[in-house]
């Protein structure tokens, strides 16, 4: 009995990681984009496009790596579209981003339904995908009781997500191109005047960030075992990612932490009742909490963070000063 209860906790921790690392991809991707001064509200659509193409191409080639690369490439292409419209053609970022979401979700269902009409690839038929998505235990660490299996035995995309987040933190804060990128996001005019190629910097990082989002979408598709239905795989995670960027204060390492915080609520929504059953005395009340509260919490918390940071006008806020503003050289 005791073992069972501990098992529930282990599963809970495991689920926090498995079901929410896609958020980390979306968030880190959006951080990279926003650091270039572009507010991209198309995360949901970009993840959807990465997901559908990554999944289908990955299955047909029976290669996880091809799937990941396809998802990245399709995400980056969506980014290229966003960059072309907002950086070169000076279109409004909010509207372009929102349209990218509509467009991306439209494409997701259009392509998905078209493939389904012919032959939908079933994940378990493709050995490399199925095995590639299996958990890999980290020797040693995964032996720790209770938390070991929860935290250190995961599929390859979980580790990749963490690695990308750490790399992006290092890139943004400790390298020259990262410094240049931040300069562009803070004040493109000044960056331009010291010889930084603003356009190129924006294009590159919008594409890079959107590519990362695409991989997150692919992950969500695999998480759903690739079963295509009337609900999109992304299921609002793109919007939570936009919120998480703020919660994480535009810091990829904080994004890892934030993913676990938001993921904690998200997992309570799914497995709160099993916790309540395992610990009736202490956690029995969990069964009575409406699931919608867990769903709303990320947005409520982010709203509070937004207000608090704007009231305190705190030093060290990661909000890029030129976020959402297009840069037109002649108006400098």
């Amino acid at each position, binding site marked *: 009995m005791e073992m069972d209860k501990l098992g529930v906790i282990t599963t809970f921790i495991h689920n926090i990681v498995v079901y929410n690392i896609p958020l980390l991809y979306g968030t880190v991707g959006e951080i990279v984009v926003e650091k270039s001064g572009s*507010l991209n*509200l198309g995360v949901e659509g970009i993840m959807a496009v990465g997901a559908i193409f990554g999944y289908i191409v990955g299955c047909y080639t029976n290669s996880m790596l091809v799937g990941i690369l396809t998802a990245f490439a399709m995400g980056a292409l969506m980014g290229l*579209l966003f960059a072309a*419209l907002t950086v*070169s*053609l*000076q*279109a*409004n970022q*909010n*509207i*372009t981003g*929102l*349209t*990218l*979401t*509509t*467009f*991306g*979700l*439209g*494409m*997701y*269902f*259009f392509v998905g*339904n*078209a493939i389904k*009409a012919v032959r939908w690839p079933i994940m378990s038929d493709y050995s490399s995908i199925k095995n590639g998505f299996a958990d890999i235990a980290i020797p040693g660490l995964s032996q720790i009781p209770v938390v070991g299996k929860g935290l250190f035995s995961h599929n390859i995309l979980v580790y990749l997500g963490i690695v990308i987040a750490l790399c992006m933190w290092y890139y943004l804060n400790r390298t020259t191109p990262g410094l240049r990128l931040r300069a562009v996001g803070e004040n493109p005019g000044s960056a331009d005047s010291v010889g930084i190629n603003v356009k190129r910097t924006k294009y590159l990082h919008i594409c890079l960030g959107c590519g990362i989002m695409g991989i997150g979408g692919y992950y969500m598709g695999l998480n759903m075992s690739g079963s295509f239905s009337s609900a999109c795989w992304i299921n*609002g995670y793109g*919007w939570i990612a*936009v*919120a998480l960027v*703020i919660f994480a204060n535009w810091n990829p390492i904080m994004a890892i932490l934030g993913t676990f915080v938001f993921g904690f609520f998200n997992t309570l929504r799914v497995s709160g009742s099993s916790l309540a059953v395992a610990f009736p005395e202490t956690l029995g009340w969990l069964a009575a909490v*409406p*699931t*919608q*509260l867990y*769903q*709303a919490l990320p*947005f*409520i918390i*982010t*709203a509070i963070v*937004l*207000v608090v940071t*704007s*009231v305190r*006008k705190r030093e060290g806020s990661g*909000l890029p000063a030129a976020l*959402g503003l297009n840069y037109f*050289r*002649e108006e400098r």
Partner: protein
Amino acid sequence: MGFHIVKRDSCPLWKKALLYVIAVLAALVLGGVLLLAMGVDPLAYYSRMFTMGMVGNKIAYKAFENYLKVFVPLALTSVALSLAFKMRFWNIGGEGQFIMGSIAAATVALKLGPVLPSAITLILMCLAAMLAAGIYGAFVAVLKVKFGTNETLMTLMLNYVALYVLMFLGDRKADWNFFLQEQSARPVFQSFADLASFPKIMFGKFGLNICVILTFLVGTLVFVYLKYTKHGYEISVVGDSAGTAHYAGMKVNAIVLRTVFLSACLIGLAAAFKVGTAGVLSTAITDDVGWTGIIVAWLSQLNTAVIFVVSALISMLHYGSVAAAATFSKVDSSFANMLQGVILFLVFTAEFFIRFRVVRNKKGGKQ
């Protein structure tokens, strides 16, 4: 050799119109190529889509009534959003405000509907919805003027808070929850169609919902408000430059608050129209008008008259694609969303050529 872009001083109207038409046609051609690739005749598909399946349909009047049900909330929401956008206040919160308005309207219908005459209930529904949505929107405007809170992100967050409140109401069976049917064991929204429902003016079999007339009326009022009143002038000055407005002695904060409140109020009115026509709440009550309205308002360059035309067309796209999907089973109705995206992207491209000129750099000049 390189190029650079310069702002145009002005662009003749015919050229503008031509560029827009080319953009939309190009989008339709792109969509057509996609349809061809799927083995569907694009002309047949488009004619089905733009006639919304009404040709050769015995109950075409019904289809047109349903089309208007899509059109009314979208047009009114887009008009409402354009008010805020004119001041560069990024009200992305149409969805949330619409939901809050819907809940308020439904509350009035369910609580007061049984005791009041239908006409009074409907008026109270409109007022309650406007107030609820207005407060929900103005709350963000207060934060914006007091603390400089980013309104784009804030309204975005509140959309989801509202959505989950609505989903909670639609999901939780309880004594206090009068939104749900009492007899049903499963949570189902209680209908109030027989308590309060907007009247129709009958033209033969076709019933013109009074909301359509009211929407055009409100649209005209907003047009006049923006163009001919002091308030309208203030809005355009604040939109151009808050600094200028301040320097001219305008109370910028008060103008922002007032306009955002009005904008959100009108979204609430759109919600009341929707709820009072549907006769029941649903978790998908907004039909995404809060999102689509943003696109419509922007496509119309925030011009009230153009908004009516564009929302008629976009509603046609959405309603028509569903109708066409019945005939062309290969083409999913999500085609409309894709096409809408492509249209907007190409219109943005057209807009670029309206606003800017591409100039070839002179030889020997600076790079």
